[in-house]
């Protein structure tokens, strides 16, 4: 290839104002047009509409472009961590794992200690915890766009040595500061996934 020439424009084709507005626009679109049914079936329909003029071909020019997707189905086992999900789903309680040798309490749990390589035993951990650090997401994939802004952060239960990534209810705040005290809340209909619970701030200010 030949050497590219120096750019003559200072800004790319998108402007800063456009950047600021497009999150809002995308949120509106998602709220209006989606979420009434699964995203995947909606997208299949959008693609079918695009392909009406000429089946299978999206665009022609100096390249030939087609739509495609990859879908996989699984029967996935949580293995040695299964008890955590069982207790979460059935009893709305949180289990960590304590090393039988050095006493380190892991949350999320693991079957063996990664510090001293001994086995661990199951141990209930407190619903109350401390935020180690968090962020507030304002941009997401389509699956999460209708719920922005939302906070995710690492929360260490008061009686554990490690923290778990979890959603933290913003309750109108924009940022959850490191050091904030939080407590776990559980969905009424739990299916055995990590998003069956979340954290909320303990103090209200």
């Amino acid at each position, binding site marked *: 290839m030949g050497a590219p020439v120096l750019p003559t424009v200072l800004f790319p084709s998108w402007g800063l104002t456009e950047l600021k507005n497009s999150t809002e626009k995308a949120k509106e679109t998602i709220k209006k047009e989606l979420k009434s049914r699964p995203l995947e079936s909606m*997208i299949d329909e959008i693609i079918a509409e695009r392909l009406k003029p000429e089946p299978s071909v999206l665009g022609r020019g100096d390249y030939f472009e087609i739509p495609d997707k990859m879908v996989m189905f699984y029967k996935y086992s949580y293995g040695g961590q299964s008890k955590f999900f069982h207790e979460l789903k059935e009893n709305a309680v949180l289990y960590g794992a304590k090393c039988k040798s050095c006493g380190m309490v892991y949350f*999320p749990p693991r079957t063996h200690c990664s510090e001293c390589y001994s086995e661990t035993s199951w141990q209930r951990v407190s619903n109350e915890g401390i935020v180690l650090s968090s*962020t507030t997401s304002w*941009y997401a994939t389509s699956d999460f766009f209708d719920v922005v802004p939302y906070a995710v952060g690492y929360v260490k239960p008061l009686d554990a040595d*490690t923290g778990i990534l979890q959603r933290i209810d913003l309750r109108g705040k924009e940022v959850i500061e490191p050091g904030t005290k939080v407590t776990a809340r559980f969905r009424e209909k739990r299916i055995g996934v990590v998003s069956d619970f979340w954290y909320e701030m303990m103090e209200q200010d």
Partner: protein
Amino acid sequence: MKSYKQMKIDKRRVAVVGTGQTKFEARTPNKSYFELAYDAAMPAIKESGISPESIDSVVYGIYNDLFERQIMPDTYVHDYLGMYGKPGIRVTTGGATGGYAFRAGYTEVASGLSDITMVIGVEKAQDCYDWAQGKATPEVIKSIAYSADMTWEFPLGTSAASSYAILASAHMKKYGTTEEQAALVSIKNHGNAMFNPYAQSPMKITVDDVLQSRMISYPFKMLDCSLYTEGAYALILMSEEKTRELGIVDPVWVMGIGSSNDKSFTGARSVKDRMGKYGDIADLRNHYEAANQAYLMADIENPMKSLDVAELHDAFTFTEIQGYEAMGLCGKGKGGKFIEDGIPLINGDLPVSPSGGLLGAGHAVGATGVMQIGEVVNQLRHMSGKRQVQINHGMGLAHSIGGPGSSYCSVSVMGVD
């Protein structure tokens, strides 16, 4: 276990003797990933003055199968480049893919398995397409989000930005780093890119532009974040004996390589664990460790007194600030002041990312780390055109990081005799 210093004595010296790249662009629909790799490989081979047949082995840095819409994409690149019959391996370590691919290429030559090894980083990110929103980015970040632990983290709506934003928030809280200081990194790197004809995002911007750009994942705004990029970068690595045999006049030597992975379950990083001496979630602990290893191997005691240039992995502005500290360019928690003082500016005491870095040149994931090593090589060979920095000591550093909570880090120190 052998010390890194001992390794330098025992192993063969390895040089980079040629670089080649494509322009980094948002999307290149007229090129497939193997065609992009071809477009970077051929100029690198030509510049090195070797023939494709003389290459003994190839290392491919390609991050994401979902980007490429292909498992084992390297095997198709290998075929396309006519490398059949020779060994080829692929490295995939998130954003650090390029740095780790270089490490693998170095070991090929240093061990004596190969005399000439080609390292190619390539990525074709933006064929992922979100039909609901009518744009690529949300689907691109989804394909990256699958790198988060699928059981514990992915279902919460995490992204690459949120993973690094959590580290930045901790750094702000612990050391008082500000969004204004981070904005200075964005201004610097987008500005440097204006002198890089291969860069994706050359821009002249202000602190206000950065602060007022839309929020992505607090504290990151749009202009704190690198963009997704398609492109390729190739390096030719050669043993010392081979450089003499072929009469290479400007070899750039690998002086030191250090690499370290921290816990990818970021919430487990504690001052009480084996890496606790480097800090906690606010500190990029594996970056400190990787830099220490690389400096030991390269005999560097004070990097500010030995390095002429550094390319840091600024996927996000705050990450570069954290990188200043971990690379030992300033004290712990002083990264914000380091940029305020203008030290990493292109005409400062230690220019950082004259290429424009990821923010300015673009983040073609697998190619990024290879590009930054190539930039250091070309700076040391005085081949960087309008963005050439002053070379006094003949040494430069490239920093390549990636993974959840920046769990991968590889640091390469390059030098000229």
